[in-house]
């Protein structure tokens, strides 16, 4: 069930990403939906799920990116694992906490990507700070919105279930 959610999440991210790039070509500089999916999945708290979700999200991103194949895969794997480990120790349940977590995850991803570029390819110029910070905030905001939306849907579904159970008892 969880794997299916990740696959559907990645498919939706891919669709929105492609439509977004058509409408606004510079979108990937300011928003990484694949990382959002990886981090939201990792917030469930399972290290293995976080790690595998990160790998899948990164590899899908790599397919559309011009970087060496596997750069995002590696970076998002580390991010997914790190977020899952953090979620095991911290209570990340409020949208504000999700925003901060995803923003930090974006910065971690950038740090790993820069390190990989230095190790394996011509590093070129370092990425500009402003787009990276904008992306961190944008990723965090989108993740927080999705988190609060899914929490509300889950809550509403739970209330309906309880009502049904109460009727059955009567």
């Amino acid at each position, binding site marked *: 069930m969880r794997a299916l959610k990740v696959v559907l999440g990645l498919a939706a991210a891919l669709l929105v990403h*492609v439509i977004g790039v058509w409408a606004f*070509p510079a979108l*990937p500089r300011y928003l990484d939906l694949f990382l959002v999916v990886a981090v939201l999945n990792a917030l469930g708290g399972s290290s293995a799920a976080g790690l595998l979700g990160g790998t899948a999200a990164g*590899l899908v991103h790599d397919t559309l990116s*011009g*970087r060496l194949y596997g750069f995002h895969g590696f970076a998002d794997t580390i991010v997914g694992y790190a977020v899952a480990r953090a979620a095991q120790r911290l209570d990340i349940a409020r949208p504000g906490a999700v925003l901060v977590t995803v923003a930090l995850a974006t910065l971690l991803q950038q740090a790993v990507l820069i390190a990989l570029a230095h190790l394996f*390819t011509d590093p*070129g110029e370092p990425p500009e700070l402003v787009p990276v910070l904008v992306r961190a905030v944008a990723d965090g905001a989108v993740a927080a919105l999705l988190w609060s939306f899914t929490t509300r849907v889950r809550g509403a579904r739970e209330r309906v279930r309880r009502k049904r159970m109460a009727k059955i008892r009567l």
Partner: protein
Amino acid sequence: MRGDAGATLLEQWAVRLVAPIPRAVDAITGSVEHAGEGMRRREELEAETVRLHARIETLERELIRLRNVEEERDQLAAALEYTPQVPGRLRPAQVVYIDHSSTLRTLILFCGGSPARVDQPVLTPDGLVGRVILVAGSYAKVQLLTDRAAAVSAVIVRTRRQALVRGGTESLELDFVPVQAAVQVGDRVITAGTDGVYPRGIAIGTVSKVLAGGELFRAITVTPAVDFAHLDRVYLLENEPVPKELMEASPRARP
């Protein structure tokens, strides 16, 4: 595990799996744009017809001139017993996705029935776009000329000075032009045909900035001939590639 199309099998399968989604989006957005075009007014269509007729006349005159030049070239070549390189055939391909985000810029093409070939040149009527770096079924990943890792052997048309064009963030860089070489803003740069990938004579761009640079070489900036922000349809050049064995053969390998 490596496939024979320029990348790992995992990457090839990932492209096969993911690329149909950008293609579907491209088809849908394309139909929406065409629907908008279909609702233009009659006067606009009439004006466009007049404009197109004028353009056809200009192009026909140009075609006649070029045919004469070609005939003249063939006659001169025959007199010198020289066999000119056969120009390749152009095959249209549909751009389904462009990566604008990273410094390593690529695009994904849908090539239709027959697949592309790794290192196949990609062009538009304006000039060189890049080369195919990965083939996955009907899809191909292209390294753009503006990619920081891209390099093309080039020649300055006016002076026939050979150099190397490298990808830059916004424009291209022309490397290995000595400080004593004559280069000026506005000089046209074309492919030299000496790198084994791109044939000779494809437009790369125009020199837009010439600086003193270092002690040996000038720092030259070239504006690409192709507008990479408006790539819609490109062409794959079906030329005969230089055999790999020849490219990789070194003097030591020979007896």
